[in-house]
C-alpha cells in the first residue's frame, strides 16, 4: 500500500465558489442594467410628462433662469448616440457642410463606443449628457437618478477627459412638454439643461423632407432643434441634414453649438478629475466584461438545455427499445446453483430481514454466505441465531467492503454469485430473475433493479424518483448501447469466471461496484439489466447522509473512470465502455450537473431583465420533457405515479445538492485529497419492506400514500403556476400583438402636449379615403374628446369641418398658409402623396389655433374603409335615428327609431346632411352618437373578458387606425381611459352657422358663434362641467 501524506479535506473552493457566485450576480445585474438602455422610440416608464410652464426658454441655467438662442441662430442637437452606424454619418454630413452641433450622449453607448465620443469632441462639436440608460428620469428614485448622472458623467470623462456641463433628459421636448423633475435635479447639480424649440420627431421616421421642414425655424428667432443620431434607423435624419443645412445657410441662419450660441454664459467642458476618469474606466471595463459574461452564460444555457433534452431523448428512446427487446426476447429460465454473498458491517437493524428474504426465494440449492466485516454490534450473533438452512456466517476483522466481498466470493461454492448488501431486501423471485440472463453464455454480469424502501418524507421520495427515473433509465441506456458501467452493489449477479477474468474485487476505488463492472466489461463480457429482478434498499434518510453517500459514489465513479481510461483506445467491449459509457457518464453525470446552476442563474437574470416569453418557454419545455420521461420510467418500472407530484421541487432543490456533490467530487479529485467511507445510521426501514406482492398492502397501510391535502395543494399550486406562466406569456404575446396591429405615427407634431396628471384632449379625425383613391384627402370629420383629470367621464365635441380657419404653411407640400375650411388643412398637409401623418399634423395645428387649446394629448385617424371594418368586427351597433334621413349616396331612407346598423349603413347614415334640417350640425350630432354607440357596444360585449373576440376586433380596428399616444403605448393609453363608462360620454354641440351669402352664390363655409369660443375656453380652463351645466341646450341627446 502506498503511503500517502494525510491532508485535510479541501474547503477553500467553497469560499471561492461563494465569492464567484456573488461576482456572477453582480456582473449579471450590471449587464441587465446596461442592457436596459433605450433610446429613440423606447417608451418611458410612466404615463406622460408634466407640463413645465415655468421655463421661458429651452436653455435652463443652474440659477433657474431660462435663455433662448439669439435671433438668426440655430443649434442642432442630436440625442441617443453615439451609434456606430449613424453617428459617423451625421458627423460626416456636418463636416461636409462645415457645421458644428451638440451631441447628447447615452452613457452605456459611450462606454461601448468611446472612440466616437472622442471624434465628436475632436471635430469641435459640443457634448452633453443624456442619462446612462435612457430611462425616464422623472419616474426614478433619487438614488437611481443620481446614478444616471454620475455614471454618464464618468463615462464621458473616461472617453474624453472632460467634465461636460450640458444635460438633456430623455424624452425631453419643448419647454412646455418636459418633465421638470430631472431638469431641477440637473440644475441642483450645476448642469445646464438644454430642451428644444423645435422637435423634429425624426424618431418616428416621417420622411427626410418632413424632418427638414420641422427643423427649420419659421420666424427670425433662434431655435434649438431636437434630432437623433441613435436609437434606431436614422437614415432620414442624415438625409434631412443635406436638405436643411443648405436651406439654413441660404437664409443666412448661423448654425452653432449650444455653448457657442450662449457666448455670454460659460457652459463649456472642464477637465475631468482623475478620480472621475478612474471610475469611468472601471465601469466601462465592467460593462464590457459583463456583456461578455452574459453572452457566455447564454451559450452555456443553450448547451445545458441541449444536454438536458438530449439526455431525456436518449433515455426515452433507449428505454423503449429495452422494454421491447425484453418483451420480444424473454430470457430462458435456468436454475444454476447460486451463492449469495452478503457483506455486512453493523447491520443489526436489517440483516435478519435480508437473510430471511434470501432464504424465502426458495431457489434450489441456494447458498447464502454472510461475511461479517468486524461488526461492533450483534450482526453476527443475529445471523447465527437465525440458524437458517443454507446460510453460512464468515467472521472477519474489519477490512472494508471489497475485502469482505473477496472473502465471501472465495468461500462461496458455486459459479454464479449474487452480491447483495446487508440492508437490502430481495423479493421472492429475485434470485431466479437475476440469474436467468446467464442462459446467454456471453453474459458475465446482471444488474438488478434496486428500489428505495424508505420513501416516506421528501428526501426518501426524491431519492425514489432518482432511482426510478435517472438510475434505472440510465441502465436501460447502457444496456441498449452494449456497455453497462455499474452493477449496483445492492443487487448484482456475476459469473465466477467473469470475476476472475476481471481481476476480482479491487480496493482501488470507493465505487468498487463500478470498478468491478468496468473491469468485467473490458474482459469482454456482456453486462445486462433485468428490471424485473427487484430488491429494496435503505437510502440515506438525512441530508448529511445523502451528501456523504453521493459524494462517495461520484468520487468513486471518477476514480473508476480514471482507472479504466485506457478503454477509450481498446476494441470490442472495452472500446464500447471507453467510447460510449464513459463519455455518457462524463457528459450527463458530471458536465451537465455542473451546468445546471447556470440554467438557474440565467433564469433569474432573465426574469429580472429580459422579456419573459422565451425564457419561460425554455423552462416549461425542459420540465415538460422531464415530466414526460419520468412518467414513462414509472410505468416501465410498474411504480405508482403518485410521487411524481414532488418532481418540480426535486428539479429545483435536489439538483442543487447533486451539483454541489459533483463540484466537491471534482475538486477533491483534482486536488488529490482523501475521502473515506462514512457512517450511515441504519433505521431498519428496509427490513419493514414486504415483498412486491404486498405492495398493495403497503399502499393500503398508507405507507405509500401522501396526505391528500399535500398532494392537492401541490397539484393545485403546480397547475396555478403553469396557468399563471401561460397567462403571463400569453398575455404579453396578446398585448404585443395588439401593439403591433395598430399603426403609430406622429399625427400631432408640435401640438403634442403630454400631461400625466392633467386633462386630456384627444383629436379624432375621419378622412374621406377609399381604397385605390388618388388625389387629395380631406378630413370629413374632426372631433375632440376631452377627458378631465379624474378620468371618469368625457366630453365629445365636433369642430365643424367647413369652418373657415387660419391654416399654417406646410413647406413639404408647398402650401404657403392661408384661410380655408378646416377639413382642407388635412388635404394641404397630406398633399398628393397622401401622407396622412403630415396631413394630421397640419390639421392639428389648425385645430389648435382655431380652439386656442395648447395642444392635444393624443390623436386617432380612421378612414372610411377602416371605419366599416371596426363596426363590422363588433357585429354592428344600435343607433337611434332622431330624424328621418334620406341617403343621397345609397338612396336608403333611415326612419326615426332605434335600429341595428352594420358598418356600411352606419357610415352611410352619419355622412348624410343634405336631407337634415340643421345640415352639417345634425351630421356632427350623428357622428358623436355613433362614437358613443361603438363604445357602448364594446362595453356590452365585455370585450375585456373575451380575449379572442377582443383580439379580432383590435386587429380589425388596428388595421384601420393610425394613432398617436405620445410616450405611452396605445394599450397603456386605452387602459388609462377604461374607467369611463359609455353613459358618461357627454355629447356637446359646437355652435356655428353658415357664413351668410346671397342666394345663388357659392357656399362660403361656416363660422363659429361666441358660445363655441366659450366652449373652447371652458375646455382650456378645465371648467367644462360648469359650462355644460349652464348651457344645457348645447348638449346633444343620444340617438
Amino acid at each position, binding site marked *: 500500500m502506498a503511503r500517502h501524506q494525510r*491532508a485535510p479535506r479541501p474547503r477553500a473552493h467553497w469560499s471561492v465558489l461563494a*465569492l464567484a457566485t456573488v461576482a456572477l450576480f453582480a456582473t449579471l445585474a450590471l449587464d441587465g442594467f446596461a442592457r436596459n438602455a433605450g433610446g429613440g422610440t423606447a417608451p418611458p416608464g410612466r404615463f406622460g410628462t408634466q407640463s413645465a410652464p415655468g421655463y421661458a426658454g429651452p436653455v435652463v441655467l443652474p440659477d433657474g433662469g431660462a435663455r433662448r438662442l439669439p435671433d438668426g441662430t440655430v443649434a442642432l442637437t442630436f440625442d441617443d448616440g453615439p451609434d456606430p452606424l449613424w453617428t459617423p454619418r451625421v458627423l460626416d454630413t456636418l463636416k461636409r457642410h462645415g457645421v458644428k452641433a451638440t451631441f447628447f450622449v447615452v452613457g452605456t453607448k459611450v462606454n461601448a463606443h468611446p472612440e466616437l465620443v472622442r471624434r465628436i469632441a475632436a471635430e469641435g462639436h459640443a457634448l452633453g449628457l443624456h442619462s446612462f440608460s435612457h430611462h425616464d428620469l422623472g419616474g426614478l428614485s433619487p438614488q437611481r437618478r443620481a446614478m444616471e448622472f454620475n455614471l454618464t458623467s464618468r463615462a464621458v470623462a473616461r472617453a474624453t477627459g472632460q467634465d461636460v456641463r450640458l444635460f438633456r433628459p430623455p424624452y425631453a421636448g419643448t419647454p412646455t412638454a418636459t418633465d421638470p423633475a430631472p431638469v431641477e435635479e440637473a440644475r441642483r447639480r450645476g448642469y445646464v439643461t438644454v430642451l428644444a424649440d423645435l422637435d423634429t420627431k425624426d424618431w418616428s421616421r416621417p420622411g427626410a423632407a418632413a424632418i427638414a421642414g420641422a427643423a427649420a425655424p419659421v420666424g427670425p428667432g433662434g431655435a434649438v432643434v431636437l434630432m437623433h443620431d441613435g436609437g434606431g434607423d436614422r437614415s432620414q435624419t442624415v438625409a434631412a441634414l443635406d436638405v436643411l443645412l443648405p436651406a439654413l445657410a441660404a437664409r443666412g441662419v448661423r448654425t452653432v453649438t449650444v455653448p457657442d450660441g450662449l457666448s455670454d454664459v460659460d457652459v463649456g467642458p472642464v477637465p475631468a478629475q482623475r478620480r472621475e476618469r478612474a471610475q469611468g474606466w472601471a465601469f466601462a471595463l465592467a460593462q464590457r466584461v459583463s456583456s461578455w459574461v452574459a453572452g457566455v452564460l447564454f451559450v452555456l444555457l443553450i448547451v445545458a438545455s441541449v444536454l438536458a433534452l438530449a439526455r431525456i431523448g436518449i433515455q426515452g428512446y433507449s428505454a423503449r427499445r429495452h422494454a421491447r427487446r425484453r418483451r420480444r426476447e424473454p430470457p430462458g429460465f435456468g436454475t444454476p446453483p447460486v451463492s449469495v454473498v452478503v457483506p455486512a458491517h453493523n447491520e443489526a437493524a436489517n440483516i435478519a430481514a435480508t437473510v430471511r428474504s434470501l432464504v424465502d426465494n426458495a431457489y434450489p440449492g441456494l447458498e447464502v454466505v454472510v461475511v461479517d466485516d468486524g461488526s*461492533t454490534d450483534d450482526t453476527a450473533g443475529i445471523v447465527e441465531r437465525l440458524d437458517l438452512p443454507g446460510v453460512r456466517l464468515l467472521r472477519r476483522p474489519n477490512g472494508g*467492503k471489497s475485502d469482505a466481498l473477496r472473502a465471501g466470493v472465495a468461500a462461496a461454492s458455486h459459479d454464479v454469485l449474487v452480491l447483495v448488501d*446487508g440492508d437490502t431486501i430481495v423479493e421472492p423471485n429475485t434470485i431466479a430473475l437475476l440469474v436467468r440472463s446467464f442462459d446467454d453464455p456471453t453474459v458475465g454480469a446482471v444488474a438488478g433493479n434496486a428500489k428505495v424502501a424508505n420513501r416516506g418524507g421528501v428526501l426518501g421520495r426524491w431519492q425514489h424518483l432518482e432511482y426510478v427515473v435517472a438510475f434505472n433509465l440510465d441502465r436501460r441506456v447502457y444496456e441498449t448501447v452494449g456497455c453497462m458501467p455499474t452493477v449496483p452493489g445492492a443487487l448484482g449477479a456475476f459469473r465466477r469466471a467473469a470475476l476472475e477474468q476481471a481481476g476480482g474485487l479491487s480496493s482501488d476505488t470507493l465505487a468498487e461496484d463500478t470498478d468491478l463492472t468496468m473491469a468485467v466489461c473490458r474482459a469482454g463480457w456482456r453486462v445486462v439489466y433485468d428490471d424485473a429482478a427487484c430488491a429494496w434498499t435503505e437510502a440515506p434518510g438525512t441530508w448529511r447522509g445523502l451528501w456523504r453517500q453521493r459524494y462517495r459514489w461520484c468520487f468513486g465513479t471518477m476514480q473508476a473512470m480514471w482507472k479504466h481510461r485506457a478503454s477509450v483506445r481498446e476494441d470490442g467491449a472495452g472500446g464500447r465502455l471507453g467510447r460510449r459509457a464513459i463519455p455518457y457518464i462524463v457528459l450527463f453525470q458530471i458536465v451537465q450537473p455542473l451546468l445546471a446552476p447556470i440554467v438557474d442563474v440565467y433564469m433569474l437574470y432573465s426574469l429580472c431583465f429580459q422579456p419573459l416569453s422565451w425564457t419561460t418557454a425554455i423552462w416549461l419545455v425542459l420540465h415538460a420533457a422531464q415530466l414526460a420521461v419520468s412518467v414513462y420510467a414509472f410505468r416501465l418500472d410498474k411504480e405508482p405515479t403518485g410521487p411524481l407530484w414532488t418532481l418540480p421541487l426535486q428539479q429545483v432543490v435536489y439538483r442543487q445538492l447533486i451539483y454541489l456533490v459533483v463540484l466537491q467530487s471534482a475538486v477533491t479529485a*483534482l486536488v488529490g485529497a482523501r475521502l473515506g467511507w462514512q457512517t450511515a445510521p441504519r433505521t431498519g426501514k428496509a427490513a419493514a419492506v414486504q415483498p412486491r406482492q404486498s405492495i398493495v398492502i403497503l399502499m393500503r397501510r398508507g405507507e405509500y400514500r401522501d396526505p391528500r391535502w399535500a398532494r392537492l395543494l401541490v397539484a393545485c399550486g403546480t397547475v396555478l403556476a403553469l396557468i399563471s406562466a401561460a397567462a403571463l406569456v400569453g398575455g404579453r404575446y396578446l398585448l404585443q400583438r395588439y401593439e403591433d396591429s395598430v399603426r403609430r405615427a406622429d399625427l400631432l407634431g408640435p401640438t403634442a402636449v403630454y400631461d400625466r396628471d392633467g386633462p386630456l384632449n384627444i383629436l379624432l379625425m375621419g378622412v374621406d379615403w377609399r381604397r385605390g383613391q388618388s388625389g387629395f384627402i380631406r378630413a370629413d370629420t374632426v372631433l375632440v374628446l376631452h377627458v378631465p383629470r379624474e378620468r371618469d367621464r368625457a366630453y365629445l365635441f365636433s369642430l365643424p369641418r367647413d369652418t373657415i380657419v387660419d391654416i399654417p404653411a406646410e413647406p413639404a407640400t408647398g402650401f404657403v398658409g392661408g384661410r380655408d375650411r378646416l377639413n382642407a388643412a388635412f388635404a394641404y398637409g397630406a398633399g398628393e402623396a397622401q401622407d396622412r401623418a403630415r396631413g394630421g399634423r397640419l390639421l392639428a395645428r389648425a385645430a389648435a389655433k382655431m380652439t386656442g387649446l395648447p395642444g392635444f394629448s393624443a390623436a386617432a385617424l380612421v378612414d372610411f374603409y377602416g371605419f366599416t371594418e371596426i363596426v363590422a368586427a363588433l357585429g354592428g351597433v344600435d343607433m337611434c335615428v332622431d330624424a328621418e334621413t334620406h341617403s343621397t349616396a345609397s338612396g336608403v331612407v333611415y326612419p326615426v327609431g332605434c335600429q341595428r346598423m352594420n358598418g356600411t349603413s352606419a357610415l352611410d347614415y352619419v355622412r348624410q346632411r343634405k336631407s337634415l334640417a340643421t345640415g352639417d350640425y345634425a351630421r356632427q350630432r350623428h357622428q358623436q352618437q355613433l362614437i358613443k354607440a361603438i363604445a357602448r357596444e364594446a362595453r356590452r360585449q365585455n370585450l375585456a373578458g373575451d380575449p379572442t373576440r377582443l383580439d379580432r376586433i383590435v386587429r380589425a380596428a388596428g388595421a384601420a387606425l393610425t394613432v398617436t399616444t405620445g410616450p405611452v403605448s396605445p394599450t397603456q393609453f386605452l387602459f388609462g381611459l377604461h374607467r369611463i363608462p359609455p353613459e358618461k360620454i357627454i355629447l356637446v354641440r359646437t355652435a356655428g352657422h353658415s357664413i351668410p351669402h346671397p342666394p345663388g352664390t357659392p357656399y362660403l363655409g361656416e363660422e363659429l358663434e361666441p358660445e363655441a369660443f366659450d366652449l373652447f375656453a371652458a375646455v382650456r380652463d378645465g371648467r367644462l362641467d360648469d359650462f355644460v351645466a349652464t348651457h344645457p341646450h348645447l348638449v346633444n341627446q343620444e340617438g
Partner: protein
Amino acid sequence: MGGRRKYPATDRPVFVDRFGRRRKLVLAVWTLTGVMLVGWLAVIGIGAGLLVPA
C-alpha cells in the same frame, strides 16, 4: 454497508501525483482565483461609485 470503520486504502486521490507540489499548486490557483474575484468586485464597486479609488 454502515457503521464506523477505519479509513481503508480506497481513499487515495484520483489522479495520483507527487504530494506537496500538487497541493501548493492548487492552493496557488485558489488564491489567485479568489484575488481575481475580489479584484473584479472592486472594479464593479469603483465603477458604480460604491468604492472610491485613491
